[in-house]
């Protein structure tokens, strides 16, 4: 049974990890928490659902749709909430991302209706069964895809010029600007990247849970935020670690204590880390 809980945790953790990265990429460059991440996750899921419903029953196409939607939303949020509000107190941008989150939720309710939609399953056959432990192919696919995306992001950030720009801006964006880095474009790129990972996570999550609805991102967004804080908001490997660890701890918490306590576990971790180790497990000490 512990093996089953571990598998449950790893599957759920993949979704948390992707969302935590979305927080970390944006927080890294701008020291700003993007509270519209949960809503972007939801919009990505809707994009995937529309694709599956009206274009073709293909999960890869759905993921592409989620990616593009997330990318565009990230870009748009940056243009409205960040760029036009730069120079104003940072709190204005923060509130603006919350506004975006509510706005997207209401828009989705108006367009798609409040009813929960069914997302079809993919690869739902049994992969293997070991005693009482059973795993379907989709769980392996989900974890595999998440890990691939995480690796690609690592390569992008540590091996490419755009990634170098992101890292430089995250160290000090004034100096980066003086060094000839296009700070605006880098911030914009970080937001789009963050949006895109959240969008893909939305498609992956909605297929795993077989549901799409306008409020699906709320709890996921909050929990993955605490995962990101857990792992370290400024560190991408930290965010990944935080995502997986949080999910695994939560699942074992349910096993050992009770199902009612699972959210408590997640948020106690959030508060605990904010109090005693605000930089998280792997985060850098920031001079802010």
């Amino acid at each position, binding site marked *: 049974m512990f093996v089953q809980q571990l598998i449950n945790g790893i599957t759920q953790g993949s979704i948390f990890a992707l969302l935590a990265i979305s927080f970390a990429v944006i927080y890294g460059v701008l020291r700003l928490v993007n509270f519209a991440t949960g809503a972007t996750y939801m919009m990505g899921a809707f994009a995937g659902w529309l694709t599956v419903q009206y274009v073709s029953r293909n999960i890869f196409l759905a993921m592409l749709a989620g990616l593009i939607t997330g990318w565009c939303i990230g870009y748009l949020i940056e243009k409205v909430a960040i760029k036009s509000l730069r120079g104003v107190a940072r709190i204005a941008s923060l509130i603006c991302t919350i506004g975006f989150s509510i706005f997207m939720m209401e828009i989705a309710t108006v367009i798609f209706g409040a009813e929960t939609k069914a997302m079809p399953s993919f690869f739902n056959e049994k992969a293997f069964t070991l005693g009482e432990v059973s795993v379907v192919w989709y769980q392996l696919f989900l974890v595999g895809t998440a890990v691939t995306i995480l690796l690609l992001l690592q390569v992008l950030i540590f091996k490419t010029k755009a990634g170098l720009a992101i890292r430089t801006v995250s160290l000090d964006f004034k100096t980066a600007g003086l060094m000839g880095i296009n700070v605006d474009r880098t911030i914009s790129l970080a937001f789009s990247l963050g949006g895109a990972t959240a969008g893909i996570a939305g498609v992956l999550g909605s297929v795993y849970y077989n549901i799409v609805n*306008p409020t699906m991102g709320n709890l996921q967004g909050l929990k993955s935020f605490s995962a990101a804080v857990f792992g370290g908001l400024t560190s991408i490997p930290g965010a990944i670690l935080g995502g997986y660890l949080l999910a695994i701890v939560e699942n074992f918490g349910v096993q050992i204590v009770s*199902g009612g306590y699972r959210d408590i576990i997640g948020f106690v971790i959030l508060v605990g880390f904010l109090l005693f180790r605000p930089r998280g497990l792997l985060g850098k000490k920031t001079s802010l």
Partner: protein
Amino acid sequence: MSKVLKGVLFLALALGMVCSVYAGGKQEKAATDEPVYIALTAPITGDYAEYGNNFKRSVEMAIDKINAGGGVLGRKLAVLVGDSKGDPKESATLAQKWTSDPRIVAQIGDFTSTCCLAAQPIYDQAGMVQLSPTASHTKFAQGSKWSFSIVGTQAGEQPFIADYAYNKLGLRKIAVIHINNDWGVDTARYFTENFKKLGGTITAIENYFDGEKDFTAILTKLRASNPEALFMAAMYNDGASISNQRAKLGWNLPVIGPSSLYSEQLLKLGGDAVNNLYTVVSFFTDDPKPEIQSYVTEFQKRYGLKPNFHASLAYDAMMLLADAMKRAGSFDRDKIREALQATKDFPGLAGSITFTEKGDAIKQYTRVMVKNNKFELFDKR
């Protein structure tokens, strides 16, 4: 200059208020072409939005039907809709708004027991009928003489379901999963009590909170307790999610649950995973009765989807209220309450309604099951 302007503005505002109070006072003897207002409190947005929208659809449909038939006592009816978002605070705020509006004669709503209980003291103090289509918590209707519920309480429904599980399905060991709110706790408690009374065993009880999407951990834990069946005190959306994730875990067993699971949505969202599910209903869309069929076809024609149990209850609530006003022969809030209390064998879509002294409806239930992704009558087999 600006001080003068402010002063003028203030005077104008004060004058406006005085006028509106005056107008409010005059409303008592309003012209008969002014409609009679009913308030509807429902979660139009938020986690429970689809239930709230069904309330709105059904109530609007009922009002159109009543108005087409000449209205009530020669006056047309109109509805004012308030969005409680499934939030008890909002529900209480709306109650303040409704009770202070002299045009409103009675209120229908809210959806969850929690919201209804939060708003209850306000209706009680102001003296306005609070008629909830769906609040099934045992404390609700007995909490105030102004509160009525037509769904029937869990104290009435669960003994029937426990009997269904123990005697009809022959189940002896059951694990329970329930949502952790007023309704879920109540439902799980009445089921376990009654099932134990019959001689059954409850192997484990687990709960989850509103908005939870991942049930695999809870299910894995319940599975270890080795039950023969799972009792699921959940709304149909969560019910479908729980079933899907149960199927992914490769855990196949019969599932039983309260009437809140009965919905086309359960089949749509759950697919094959919800087969072998047993529940009870007091409203069944395939019921051949002509009034039910005409309601179902009209609902489908207007909104493009099939009504469910909750929708039919909201329709019943509106029809019942109109009936009570007719019997009272008045739109007086107090007289409406008296007439409502005296309701006997009102022919609703979801079974006939008779109120107990405390304001709970006594209901009859029908056993149904899901087979080949369709709801079927259990006893017809």
